[in-house]
């Protein structure tokens, strides 16, 4: 009997590990409050937030840490509309949408230095109109808190603001001391402008009276400090009167509209004066701790608009039979395998400085096959800085094709023709040191091994599979890839540990290559796909410290030339960057493979800027 108990204890131990782990993976936040059509005529639509990414910030002046889709596309724009809206409810183009914008197209004068914007008629939920003063208020706060705004680009348009004013209630004038390309400025500068209610938010404490504090630098900072504190107090979002003053189609349901777990309940703004007035009675965003938990909720009918983990694509049949439509949602962005030119492995620096080695490495990435087999067909290729999907005029014809298509033989030839002795399955060795033709290159000594390290995030089966296949392909030509897996935040921390620093100061944990997500970078809310942040010297998303004078000169030209010349330069630039390989290109996984209930109508397309349009949706009873 005692022996039996021991055996049972062993089995129980095994089961406990499984159950514990499963519980960790499956634990979802409270997602049980779905109740289709139970509120009133319009019904309730439930929408799944990305796993592990609940909203964290409500104030539409956000810093980098609070600039995820959970905040800046799923939450804030539903309540506070940007002046110029990018994206469309009926197609996936990442372009300006004047119909949904709060202002007419900007008018440029004074050689392009003065921009005049005429506001359409919109009202705040208090009944007062949205005016140019509300834009002045927002810009006063931003310019005094540049470092706390994610849209700030060092040396960008904000540093060239000469003045701005509201000559009338519906006219906003911005004067710059530099001439920018008009499309560039619209997509990367004016896209950020967001009116916020000066008549309700211009105060420095809960008890203070509304004033014009924003007119002085100290006052603007004080107002920001107050609003930021209110925004960081997640538990009070739905009880704070400030956040009830909106100009968008939705507002938080008072008292019960937000839980710190991330559950959001939005109800229609009855004073909404713009197009697409809400038809449903309530819009709920549900948080999940894992994709598995979300998928369980989806299968149980708790979610109307959710997503299917890529690993569960084989089970789509049952979901479709339950009345769900499956549609991939692609974001306006790129997936890169970041090359850390300044890594702790200084020996590696001389290797990666060689273009032919980068070319060999990129030639071993079989993007079409990755998309077909690993991503189940739900992916698009990345060949350069401008996203291939959705199709836009920004994409050069040269970038529509892979400059380095998959070829093991070409990769091998590139290495052997530069003095490397190939050890298939092992590690290549430099046999011909030197900087001449047919030699390994400057700084690479005889006997140097072609070995690199790659760090990637845990918990993403697709990325794990891609990395394993990549390691195998590299191994076949003797490039030794040492893998290390870590939580996404750790990968980001280690990848950016050498950002803007010399290699010798890098911590030993810095990898040579880093992959943190797919897509790795999205052009939201800065929509112009030039990639200054990624490939410009000192760019904020340039952890590898890639810096090229040629690239920087082209980026400057793109920003400042006239529309036609700027576009030509953009084409030239993207082709150059695509071939120079400041990073290795990987396929873009779908942002999510959406599963949309057949009860939900009015979702003809998914916006590549990741905006959602619940005010255009209806629920079939």
């Amino acid at each position: 009997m005692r022996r039996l108990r021991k055996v049972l204890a062993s089995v129980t131990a095994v089961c406990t590990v499984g159950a514990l782990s499963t519980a960790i993976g499956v634990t979802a936040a409270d997602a049980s409050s779905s109740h289709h059509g139970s509120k009133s005529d319009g019904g309730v639509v439930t929408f799944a937030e990305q796993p592990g990414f609940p909203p964290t910030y409500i104030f539409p002046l956000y810093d980098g840490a609070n600039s995820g889709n959970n905040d800046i596309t799923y939450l804030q724009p539903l309540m506070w509309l940007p002046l110029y809206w990018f994206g469309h409810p009926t197609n996936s183009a990442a372009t300006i949408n004047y119909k949904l914008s709060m202002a007419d197209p900007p008018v440029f004068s004074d050689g392009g230095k003065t921009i005049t914007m005429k506001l359409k008629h919109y009202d705040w939920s208090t009944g007062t109109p949205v005016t140019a003063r509300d834009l002045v208020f927002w810009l006063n706060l931003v310019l005094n808190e540049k470092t706390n705004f994610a849209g700030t680009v060092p040396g960008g348009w904000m540093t060239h603001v000469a003045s701005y004013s509201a000559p009338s209630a519906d006219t906003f004038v911005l004067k710059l001391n530099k001439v920018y390309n008009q499309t560039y400025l619209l997509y990367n500068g004016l896209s950020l402008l967001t009116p916020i209610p000066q008549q309700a938010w211009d105060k420095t404490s809960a008890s203070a009276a509304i004033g014009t504090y924003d007119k002085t630098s100290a006052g603007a900072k004080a107002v920001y400090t107050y609003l930021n504190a209110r925004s960081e107090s997640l538990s009070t979002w739905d009880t704070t009167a400030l956040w009830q003053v909106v100009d968008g189609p939705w507002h938080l349901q008072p008292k019960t509209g937000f839980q710190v777990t991330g559950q959001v309940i939005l109800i229609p703004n009855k004073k909404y004066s713009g197009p697409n007035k809400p038809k449903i009675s309530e819009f709920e965003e549900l948080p999940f701790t894992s994709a598995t938990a979300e998928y369980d909720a989806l299968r149980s009918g708790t979610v109307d608009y959710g997503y299917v983990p890529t690993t569960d694509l084989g089970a789509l049949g049952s979901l479709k039979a339950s009345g769900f439509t499956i549609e991939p949602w692609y974001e306006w962005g790129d997936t890169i395998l970041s090359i850390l030119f300044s890594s702790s492995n200084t020996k590696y620096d001389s290797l990666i400085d060689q273009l032919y080695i980068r070319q060999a490495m990129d030639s071993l990435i079989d993007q079409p096959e990755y998309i077909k087999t690993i991503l189940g067909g739900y992916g698009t290729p990345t060949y350069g800085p401008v996203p291939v999907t959705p199709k836009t005029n920004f994409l050069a014809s040269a970038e529509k094709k892979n400059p380095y298509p998959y070829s093991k033989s070409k990769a091998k030839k590139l290495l052997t023709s530069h003095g490397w002795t190939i050890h298939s399955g092992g590690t290549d060795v430099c046999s011909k040191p030197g900087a001449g033709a047919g030699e390994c290159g400057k700084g690479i000594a005889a006997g140097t091994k072609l070995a690199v390290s790659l760090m990637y995030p845990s918990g993403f089966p697709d990325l794990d599979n891609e990395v394993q296949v990549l390691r195998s392909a590299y191994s076949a030509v003797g490039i030794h890839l040492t893998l290390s897996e870590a939580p996404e935040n750790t990968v980001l921390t280690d990848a950016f540990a050498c950002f803007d620093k010399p290699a010798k100061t890098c911590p030993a944990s810095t990898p040579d290559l880093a992959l943190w997500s797919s897509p790795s970078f999205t052009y939201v809310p800065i929509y112009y796909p030039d990639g200054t942040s990624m490939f410009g010297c000192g760019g904020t998303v340039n952890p590898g410290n890639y810096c090229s004078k040629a690239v920087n000169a082209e980026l400057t030209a793109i920003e400042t030339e006239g529309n036609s010349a700027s576009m030509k330069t953009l084409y030239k630039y993207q082709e150059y960057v695509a071939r120079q390989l400041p990073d290795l290109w990987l396929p873009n996984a779908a942002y999510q493979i959406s599963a949309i209930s057949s009860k939900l109508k009015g979702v003809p397309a998914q916006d590549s800027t990741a905006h959602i349009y619940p005010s255009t949706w209806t629920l079939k009873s």
Partner: protein
Amino acid sequence: MSFRELLDVEAAGQATPGQLASPTAFEPRGPTSWGITTREFLHHHLGMIGATVILVMILFSFVGPLLYHTNQSATNLLQINLPPGRGHPLGTDQVGYDVLGRLMVAGQSSLEVGLAAAAIAVCIGTVWGAVSAFAGGWVDSIMMRVVDALIAIPTVLLVLLLAAIVTPSVLTIICVLGFVSWLITARLVRGEVLVLRTLDYVSAAKLAGDRPVRIVLRHIVRNVIGTVAVQATFEVANAILLLAALSFLGLGPPPPAVNWGGMLTTGLNYIFDGYWWQIYPAGVCIVLTVVAFNLLGDATRDVLDVRLRSS
């Protein structure tokens, strides 16, 4: 035979303390204690089942790849997620590895980690417990409070913490698991030593002028080997489980290293796709091996403890 040699013989378990007084104590008297132990073990059915399963698993993992050749270094995207069939008796996984061959390679890591971590754990635990009990006084108090403090922290939490700090590899995982698994052994050994140190032959060794280190190593430790051996088998099972749990949580050794827990985790990603061959085989291997080591430990304790012997 000198007095010290007599003490050593007694400490080695060849004679009970009382036999030292008899001039005929060392005459041959039938089977040795090793022989009795072996005979008892061979009659212990569950123990034999456990030992057989462990032997099969070792052969499967270390000899299997020599007989069943598969490519476990190159992925094959043209053959992903194939169900069991010709050429792949247990199908293929999500990057095209043959699952049967993968199980064999994974078994090597799992068993190596289990055995090595258990070895580290029992070595540390035995020395710690023996020194603590033999020294007594404040040394004992401090050493055991350390054990109490560490035991108070859930093992899985401690392992997760350590695994997050160090870069995972087979070697570091062995060290981590060994470091967190010695506590129970230390307590058990301390309890045994507290009894042993009061026995006559230990007192006699002290009177004979033996140094404490010699007494511990020569007279104490070898008399707790039975307890340690039993505990070691349980530690192997625990280490395999902990490795599986770590890998399940994504903190195991990264590719190309593979273990059964990692295979189970990866397979579970595809649970709704119906790829059962990526889940059950690894799970069955873990369960079988862990149960087998527990049976072995149970049987070892039974045959070493005279009170539990069948004859």
